[in-house]
Structure formats: structure tokens, C-alpha cells
């Protein structure tokens, strides 16, 4: 059934090109933390952007992804240059090469270079926390814009509104692909300190269930806010939004034996009704995402959960982290996103390298992250961009304190350079993809395997010498007396 769905969706790339252009038009500004977020959006001020959004801490890093829509991934390049998947043609930077793949980032450039004072662990925690909050705030703004666009679509589910909604989705998704790398504290899963599991509530990939979305489309569950908020995460969040906004086929994703097909309730919906319901469902999902994004920002804000204090003051009384090293381990866990999600889930499984792909060693194209928008490569690009920010620094040109400063401070400069070079190599490999990742998985898997290999060079160092030199714990390490 999945393959049938893909077959029915062949028109997506063409449709995507239209909204890509729209996205480029709406990509207007870079953001600085605490800056005029709403000014980035044309038209009336977005009522979903709260005027009392928590201010960024002093010295806050410029906002990540200020040029999202113009960033790789942004649909601009994909639409204008079929030969590339959103790449900006810059290729990889050297070890200190800055934000490869991100293109010129006005927000960052305007904000200037962050200082790099003498390294202390506390300063690394502060820098990472500020970087994370900046990304969360950026996503909150994008999610609010998405809600606004979807309200218009739900009001009048026409082509123009759909195009705007898709552009807003692209911006929000690109923002989240950067933000979700900062998966510690409230974004993390239990039993991590401070965990509220908000990442999974916003984007549960690789969990996603298009059939359940279709079933809830028929049942109207999305109309009941409380029930919807408590429903399965695989049919909410950004994955569901992508499916609802970019799949317009008549078929559903369920097997014939599933109730909506067996009892004819799906077939009873005509095209217009389905379009309306998809818009309504998408709006409900976007509102749910926005609520979670606000919870995430609030959890860090001084006026909210004030997790910032807990995190930065790790090791002091009252913090959920008994030692500063525990908070640093949480940052390390965040870097392991590149190993687990990027290398294995987003590349290894679709490539068929991983036996988790049911067709392995042949490819599993339906396991690509962005099946309907075909923006998987851009998602990788954003992930790696955020990884570099966490590793090297969140300021313009990756200035500011990062893990590289820690490595240098302990005398492991060579390792720092090796890791930065490996990261640049991975970013360059993504940028060098000659086409969107989804068709390449099948037509030229070697191209994607090169990306996988490049990412692995970084994660091999991450898993071995990096954690050894800094004595960082691998996720979920346990006690022992023999090592």
C-alpha cells in the first residue's frame, strides 16, 4: 500500500516546485534573538507570535537559520536548479570553514562574531543553552506563521492558500531540523533530566503513520482539541503536516482491510470534502505543534520553567544535573543525533545499508525522511548545520564557544581539527549531491553512500576519541568497576 501511495504521489515534485518559488519569495530576513520576529513575515502581524516571548539571555547568539528559506533546503534551489537538492553550491568548508551549506546568513552576519573567552565548562553550557533557545524561538515563530497560513487555507482551501501554507511549512520544517538537534532538557525523552519529551511531540520521526492520519481524517478526531493532543504522536506533528499538505491523491495509506476502506467511509468523502478536512486537520496539527513549541520555549524561559538556570548551573544545588559533567553529557547526547538519526535512520535505512530496511541490501526509498516534499537532503543539511553550531559555536562563522574550544583547552587540538574537517566533509558531501536524495537513493545510491561514509567519518571520531578525551558518557551508560 505504501508503494501505491508513492506511485499515486508522482506529481509531488512538480507541485513542490511551485511552492518552492513561493517559499523563496517569503524568505525575507534573518533573525536575531529577541529581535523583531514578526517583521519577517509579510502581511498582517501574526497574532500567533506572542508579544511576551521570553527574551534571549544576554549575549545571545544570533538566530539560527536566519535565511532558512534561502538555505539549502529551501525549496528555492530545488525549484530553480533541478540538478541540486537545495544546495547552494558553496561546497564544504575547511575545518574552520563555518556554516557550510548554509549560504550567506544575513542574521548571523549582521549580529557579528561572538567572542570566544577562555574556555570553561560553564561557558560551554551557557553557549549551548543560548544556542538551543535561539533555535527553539526561531521555530516557535515559524510554527506561528504556519498556523496563520493554515488558517487561511482552512478558510479557503484554494491553490494560492495551499502554496502559502506549503511555503510556511517548509520554513518551519527547516527551522525544526536545526532545532531538534538540541535534544536535551525539556526536548529530551525521560529519564533524561528535565525531560518533557517535547521533541517527539513536535516531530516524531522516524515514527509516522499515514494510515492513522487518514483514519483520523475520516473520524474527525482532530476536531476535538484535547483528544487530538492526547492521540498518537505518529499521526500528529510535522510528519503528519507534510502528508496532509503535500499529498493530494484520492487513495489513502491504509490496507483494504482497514475500517475506512472496508466500511466505505473513505470513499464516501468526495474530493472537496477531503481537501477541506485535510486543511482542517493540518490546522489542528499545526496548532498542536505551536503549543508544544511554546511549551518548549517557556520551559527554558525565566518566566516559565527556567530550565536555563537548571542547565547552566549544573552541579549546583537545585539543578537537575548533579554534576556539570552530567549536563555536558546531555550536550554530547545531542551530538549523537548525527550518529543515530542522520547516519542510521535518515541515510542507512533508506539506502538499504541497514538491515532495518526490509528490502536490504536494496534501497528502501519509502523510508526517506521527506517522502512528499523530497527535501530529505535539505533536512540533513540543516541537521549538520546545527551540529556544527553546537560543536564549534553558534555565532556568525561559527564563532563563540563550542566543543572545539574544550578540545583545544585540554590539549587535543588535532582531534578538534580532525572532527571539524570530518564535519565539513559531511556537509560538503550533502551539498555535492547532484539531485534530490529521494530519487538518488534508487538511481545513484553510490552518491548517497558517499554522504553516509562522510558522516560516518565524523561519528567514528565522536564515538571513540572524542568521548574518551572529554570523558563524556555514551548515552545510557551504566555503572561498572572494570573500565
Amino acid at each position: 500500500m505504501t508503494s501505491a501511495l508513492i506511485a499515486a504521489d508522482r506529481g509531488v515534485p512538480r507541485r513542490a516546485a511551485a511552492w518552492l518559488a513561493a517559499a523563496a519569495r517569503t524568505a525575507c530576513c534573518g533573525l536575531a534573538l529577541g529581535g523583531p520576529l514578526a517583521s519577517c513575515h509579510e502581511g498582517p502581524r501574526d497574532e500567533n507570535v506572542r508579544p511576551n516571548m521570553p527574551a534571549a539571555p544576554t549575549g545571545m547568539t544570533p538566530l539560527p537559520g536566519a535565511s532558512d528559506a534561502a538555505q539549502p533546503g529551501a525549496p528555492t534551489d530545488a525549484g530553480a536548479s533541478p540538478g541540486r537538492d537545495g544546495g547552494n553550491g558553496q561546497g564544504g568548508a575547511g575545518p574552520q570553514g563555518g556554516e557550510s551549506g548554509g549560504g550567506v546568513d544575513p542574521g548571523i552576519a549582521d549580529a557579528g562574531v561572538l567572542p570566544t573567552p577562555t574556555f570553561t565548562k560553564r561557558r560551554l553550557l551557557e553557549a549551548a543553552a543560548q544556542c538551543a533557545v535561539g533555535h527553539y524561538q526561531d521555530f516557535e515563530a515559524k510554527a506561528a506563521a504556519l498556523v496563520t497560513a493554515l488558517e487561511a487555507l482552512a478558510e479557503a482551501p484554494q491553490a494560492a492558500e495551499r502554496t502559502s501554507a506549503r511555503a510556511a511549512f517548509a520554513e518551519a520544517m527547516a527551522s525544526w531540523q536545526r532545532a531538534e538537534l538540541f535534544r536535551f532538557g525539556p526536548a529530551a525523552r525521560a529519564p533524561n533530566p528535565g525531560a518533557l519529551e517535547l521533541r517527539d511531540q513536535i516531530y516524531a520521526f522516524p515514527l509516522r503513520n499515514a494510515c492513522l492520519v487518514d483514519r483520523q481524517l475520516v473520524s474527525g478526531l482532530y476536531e476535538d482539541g484535547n483528544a487530538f493532543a492526547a492521540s498518537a504522536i505518529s499521526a500528529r506533528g510535522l510528519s503528519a503536516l507534510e502528508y496532509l499538505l503535500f499529498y493530494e491523491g484520492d487513495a489513502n495509506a491504509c490496507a483494504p482491510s482497514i475500517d475506512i476502506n472496508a466500511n466505505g467511509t473513505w470513499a464516501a468523502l468526495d474530493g472537496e470534502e477531503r481537501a477541506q478536512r485535510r486543511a482542517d486537520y493540518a490546522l489542528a496539527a499545526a496548532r498542536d505543534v505551536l503549543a508544544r513549541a511554546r511549551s518548549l520555549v517557556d520551559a527554558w524561559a525565566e518566566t516559565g520553567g527556567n530550565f536555563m538556570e537548571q542547565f547552566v548551573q549544573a552541579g549546583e544545588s537545585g539543578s537537575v544535573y548533579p554534576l556539570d559533567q552530567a549536563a555536558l553529557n546531555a550536550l554530547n547526547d545531542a551530538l549523537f543525533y548525527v550518529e543515530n538519526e542522520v547516519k542510521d535512520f535518515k541515510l542507512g535505512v533508506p539506502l538499504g545499508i541497514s538491515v532495518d530496511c526490509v528490502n536490504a541490501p536494496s534501497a528502501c526509498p519509502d523510508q526517506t525522511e521527506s517522502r512528499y516534499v523530497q527535501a530529505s537532503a535539505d533536512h540533513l543539511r540543516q541537521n549538520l548545520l546545527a551540529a556544527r553550531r553546537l560543536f564549534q559555536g553558534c555565532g556568525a562563522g561559527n564563532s563563540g564557544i563550542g566543543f572545539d574550544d574544550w578540545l583545544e583547552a585540554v590539549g587535543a587540538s588535532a582531534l578538534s581539527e580532525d572532527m571539524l574537517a570530518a564535519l565539513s566533509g559531511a556537509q560538503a558531501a550533502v551539498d555535492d549531491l547532484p539531485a534530490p536524495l529521494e530519487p538518488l537513493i534508487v538511481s545513484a545510491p553510490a552518491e548517497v553512500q558517499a554522504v553516509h561514509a562522510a558522516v560516518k567519518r565524523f561519528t567514528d571520531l565522536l564515538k571513540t576519541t572524542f568521548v574518551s578525551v572529554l570523558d563524556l558518557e555514551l548515552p545510557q551508560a551504566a555503572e561498572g568497576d572494570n573500565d
Partner: protein
Amino acid sequence: MTELHADTHRPSLRARLYARLLAREDIAWLCALRVLFGLMMAASMLRFIAYGWIDEFFVRPAFHFKYWGFAWVQALPGPQMHALFWVLAALALCVALGLCFRLAAAGFAIGFTYLQLIDVTTYLNHYYLASLLAFLLALSPAHRSFSLDAWLRPRLRSQLVPAAYHHLFRFQVGVVYTFAGLAKAQSDWLLHAQPLRTWLGARTGLPVLGPLFAQEWAAPLMSWGGFLFDTSIAWLLLYRSTRAFAFVLVLGFHGMTGLLFPIGMFPVIMIVAALVFFSPSWPRVLLARVLGRNANVPTPPVARPEPWPRTPRRRAHDLVFGAALVYCALQLVLPLRHLAYPGSVLWHEQGMRLSWRVMVREKNAALTFFVRDRRSGKSWQVAPRRYLTRLQEREMSGQPDLILQLAHHVRDEFARRTGGPVEVRVEALVSLNSRSPRHLIDPTVDLAQVHDGVARARWIASPPPEPPPHIEPI
């Protein structure tokens, strides 16, 4: 005639040895050990239950690593495994109370050892020690005083016990300390202060002690301190004149390591174990001081070398002492067996387990299996996490024999799936004590064809030649 005279009037060496070993002494030390050990192990079982470790270590893993020769040991289903821990906790309490002691101690020793045999990745030196102590206790008359058994069955009561038990326990604990010390007599530990330097560097945020760990001299000082402590503490505890000072060192050392590192029950077990070096009546003396009374120390019979009886009892003694001798020899040989394998035991790990190499290496690895169908030529990359929990993956990644076990499991699964033979190779990049990563296993070797055993493993790659890097504490 002279020999005959000597033989008649002067006991033989064996007779004198037996007389010394069979000499009676106060049983109080053994009873105290029984009580403390029972309580400690009951607490340990409850920790497993409370922390969810039963599921994490024994129930959730779909694959378990086996000890060589013990592949037949299987984990129980979840509910039975949980029940086993409650039973073991109850048995440990029975040991402490001296209730049905023989049965409880033997049951606990067997049950606790069974737990360790389920999965090699749960191996900890102090669990191994706990198993040994449990078996030794089960064979001792530790229930003949201060126990419910003795209260319920007066004929069991005894205030004295052969000194042989005391010597055996002291030997066992002395072996642990001494070999833990000898394991530190290598360049990484003594010359480069690794891995302690890295570990301390991660603990500079601790109050009071943290800033000290940021000093350049801290790691070398503590490395040498640990080495000297381990190699000498058993001897310092053995002699009455240094015993009190040595026990203060024991408290300080294990208190410090317990504070600094996530080593669970290890410090408590070692502190309790170190009590065996005290005089036999120490519990009575301590209790009397606490209560402000005179200690009621039982008087042993006058020690006299007894003529060695030529009776069935003598043959029984020969058998028991022979078995004890074999046990002691094994305890000396096992930690030294690594000498039979060239290269660094920290790298190849042949002879690593059961040898008290406590906290002497830090290994982190990136590991991927490469499987190739020999008929079709199709290939796959297999990440260990497909089969393992995080804990299992971490422990396995630095231990070649476990990597081989998983390779065989991967081979069998893919052979079933493809219906034909497969090759399994591994890229195991390992960082030892913060060195640059290096292949632990020869990546060209088809592990599907390699058999595990005690012979030198030539499929293990050579260790890194360079010393560990110098890490500045921050």
C-alpha cells in the same frame, strides 16, 4: 634413629601446618562477615529491583553474550527473573540472620553466580568477588553463633572456629587488592596517569575536591597513590601495628572512589571485605566498647600440635585442604594467565576477566559489521545496536571475544535469511585510554570462520604503539 626421634617427638611440617590451620579462634569475625555480607547483598538485589536493572540487563536484551563453556546458561522469562531477585534478596537476608544458613548461603551463591553467567557484559569484578565470598561463606560454619539457626538448634552452637577459614578469607581479599595493584603496574597508569587523568578532568566541577583535580599533579599523584594502596594494603591490614592506619586508608580510598566514580556497591563490598584482616574477636570488642562493657571473648583451647591421626578423618582433612589449595592456586593463576598472550592485555583482553583489573582502561569504539552473501555477493552493514542494548554495545565494543560472539550471531541470522553461507567482517575502531582510534580486529578476517577459544587470538590487531595523549585537566 634421629629421624625417627624427630618424627616421634617433633610433629611433621604437615602436622604443624594442620595444627595451625585447625587451631580454634573466636567465631565472631565470621559471623560479622556473614551478617554484613547478607545485608549488603540484600541491598544489592533491591537496587537491581528498584533501578529497573532486571529488565535492562536480563529481560530486554534479545541477545546475551556467553562465557566460554557456559553457553547453555539462559535467562529466565521476565516474571521469573523478577521473582528470582526477590528470592535472592530473601536468601541474602536469611544469610544475615543465620536462618537455614547452609541452604540460604548455597542458594544465594548459586543464584547470584547464575545471574552473572547470563551475560558477560554485566561482568563486574566486585560481583565476581561477591560470588566467591558467597561460596566461601556457604562452606563455612558462619551460622554457629549470632544466628537464628544456633538459637533454634543449640547443638549447632559454637563460639570457636578453625583458623583456616580466617586465613582463606584473608587470602581471598588479599588477592583482590594485590592483583588490582599489579594491574596498575604499566606505563599508561604509572607514567601517563591514564585513564585517571581523563576521568579526573571530568570531575573538576565537584565541590572542594574539584579544583584540586584541575591541578597538573593530581592525576599522577592519585595514580601512584592507587597503585601503592592496592599493592600494599593487604599487608598493612595484616599486621596489628599498621592495621588501624590501614583501615583508615581503606575507608578514605573507597570513600573517595565511591564519591568520584559510578561503581555502585564496590566500595561497600571492599570495606566489608577488609574487616577480615582484623583480629577474630573484633566484633565483640567493638560491641563492648559501644555498650560500655567488657568484651566477653571466648577462650580457645590451648593450642597444641596434635599428633596427626591416621584415621578416616585425616583423609577427609587431606581432601578439604587439597581442595582449598587448588582453589588458592587457581586464584593466583587466573589473574596471571594474561602472561600467556603477547601484547597488552588492556588491548586484546585475553586474560582480562576474573583477574581484578579494576578501572585500568577506558575504551570507546565505533563498530560496524560487514556481511556478504558468498553466493550472490550482496552485502550489508550491520550496526551492533540492532541486537544489543546500549550497555551491551558499550561493553562489547572493546572486548574482542564478545565481538566475535556477535559476529557469529550475525552470521547465523544472515545465513538463515539468505539460505546460504555469509562472510562477516568488522570495522572496530577503538580508542584505548584516549588514543586515536585504531582497528581492534583485523578488518580483513572473516569472523564467520573464526572459532573462539583460549588460544592466542591472531585475528586481533596489534595494539597502538603510541602512548596516550596528554590531557590537560580543566
